């Protein structure tokens, strides 16, 4: 009797399946594709989750560094070195604050100067009479994004060279070579300029696609109403692509502590007086790999953990913001 009752219960369309029944059914249905997950999960486990245990390095004293320099095994070093909180207390020195504030300032400037540039560029291109020409311009503007940072920096140092460079000689004629000392002393404007030169064109593709998909009749109506291009851009285009802008803004804020190791490395490495211009990426790199002399694994791990938690916080905040305002999470 009970048997048929439970059978009836299972086959009844009104029956709410419980968690175990659902899971079992899901397994049964997906059993031949469930193993698809295994390779990706294994790679994540080995190269993302196991390194996360490296958080513990930040709570070790310098005997861990010595063990690592002797190429002892990591587990052994973890067991035999002492636990301490001093490493964490000692990371907040001047170099660290300078590096953190440099990263934040550069990213803020990027957000206020370079980020709108892509949008303005996309609006200009989408407004052009000949869309073929607009696409050609876009294709040209995208080229620098496909060059490596080495090539980009080399091209511009060559261009700015006061003896042989095309613009450098012109500038040297006007400033009698002062622009070189200026460039060396002030690093952020040049850093931003290179970043803008490399990324603006590629960054505008998304906005260009969003703008060209706006209904043309809105623009016709606005024209009849006598709106000029500027008014159309402010009151029509930007509100229409607001979701895309917000999403990209949140994504860029999520990576706010990082400015790209390669560019900072190329522009700042080598000269010690650049130390006050270091970014956080470069500071961590100097501490953990560097030129071998100043390597301090525990301090690097501590700064890395701090950085990890700040970016985690920013990412989660970004996700909350997008879920709230765009009704879609980042993932």
């Amino acid at each position, binding site marked *: 009797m009970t048997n048929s009752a439970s059978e009836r219960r299972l086959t009844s369309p009104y029956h709410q399946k419980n968690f175990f029944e659902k899971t079992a059914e899901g397994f049964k249905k997906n059993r031949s594709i469930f193993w698809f997950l295994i390779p990706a999960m294994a790679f994540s486990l080995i190269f993302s989750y196991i390194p996360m245990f490296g958080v513990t390095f930040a709570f070790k004293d310098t005997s861990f560094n010595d063990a690592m320099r002797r190429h002892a095994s*990591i587990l052994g070093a973890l067991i035999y070195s002492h636990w301490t909180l001093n490493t964490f207390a000692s990371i907040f020195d001047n170099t660290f604050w300078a590096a953190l504030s440099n990263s934040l300032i550069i990213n803020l400037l990027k957000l206020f100067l370079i980020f709108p540039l892509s949008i303005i560029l996309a609006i200009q291109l989408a407004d052009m009479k000949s869309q073929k020409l607009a696409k050609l311009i876009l294709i040209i503007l995208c080229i620098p994004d496909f060059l490596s940072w080495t090539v980009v920096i*080399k091209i511009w140092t060559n261009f700015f060279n006061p003896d042989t460079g095309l613009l450098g000689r012109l500038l040297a004629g006007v400033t009698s070579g002062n622009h070189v000392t200026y460039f060396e002393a002030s690093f952020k404007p040049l850093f931003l300029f290179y970043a803008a030169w490399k990324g603006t064109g590629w960054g505008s593709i998304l906005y260009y*696609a969003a703008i060209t998909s706006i209904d043309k009749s809105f623009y016709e109506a606005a024209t009849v109403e006598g709106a000029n291009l500027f008014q159309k851009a402010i009151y029509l285009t930007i509100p229409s692509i607001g979701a895309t802008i917000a999403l990209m803004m949140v994504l860029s804020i999520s990576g706010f502590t990082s400015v790209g190791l390669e560019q900072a490395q190329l522009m700042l490495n080598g000269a010690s007086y650049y130390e006050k211009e270091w970014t956080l990426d470069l500071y961590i790199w100097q501490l953990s790999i560097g030129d071998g002399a100043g390597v301090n694994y525990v301090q690097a791990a501590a700064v890395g953990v701090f950085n990890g938690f700040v970016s985690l916080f920013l990412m989660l905040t970004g996700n909350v913001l997008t879920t709230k305002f765009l009704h879609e999470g980042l993932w």
Partner: protein
Amino acid sequence: MGKSIALHIRSASFFHGRKGTGPKVHQPVVDVVIRTISMVILGFFVILIIVPLLNYFSLAFNDPTYNENVIIFPIRWDFSSFAYLFSSNSEGFWKSFVNSLIITLVVTVISNLIEAMAAYPLSKLDCPFRKGILMYFVITMLFSAGIVPIYLLMRSFNLLDNIWSIILCSISNVFNLLFYKSFFESVPKEIEEAATVDGAGSLRLFFDIVVPMALPVFGSCCFFTIVDMWNGYGAALIFIKTSATDSMPLAYYLYVMMTQDTSKTQYDIFLQTHMDNIQAASFLISIIPILLIYPYVVKYIKSGATLGSVKE
């Protein structure tokens, strides 16, 4: 160039208005001004991109005695820099070129294959522990413990100064996984159901039906992986010493060539005089693989970049 285009548009609209064939709507004077300024700005941007590129890469074809006079074309053509690069003196360059080819190829194939495979079960709503497994992947994107642990891990695997350290740590790519997942979710259920009724197993369903449908997504994800792996050397900065010339990716080799002390050149007169030109030539060769896939970028732009607007 920019100015002439601006003038052209201005005169065109002028004639347009005089003939009175256009719509009756009066075009505000502000618009003409804005369009002109906008064209000048765009023209300036195009010049800002093209001139430094041509200026630098014409060094590759130029006679070094005239390097200073180059504007955007070589002054006197000279291919000896390329001859040097193709001679036995530049083994390191070609070794790193091959390394980069291997890294790019292996990472692109394996990474995209396993991420797409993992995305497929996750796109099924009845997949058990779907949310949990998704979080398992997303957490790796959210939090990382920095470069020390991964460096020490690779050291204990004995993979330092080896291209496999770069390959292994680049394979996991959660961004692509989410991209594939959102595409697979958009595949209509009816197609898969029809194939199941016809007797296709899940494996056949995935490789014969779903993957061919997802080819544009594969194309764009693979394209981004290729560009990242070819141009990026952040991992190489961590895992490869500047002295390990045998196991460098190309971008890193060029970085080392550009920044390191050039003391060894003092024994090589040709290298000394042609330094800039050889560097330009090697940079030019290094971007050829990217130029080969650039038509894909053009297609991507022309198709309206719709793939880019798929939610990440």
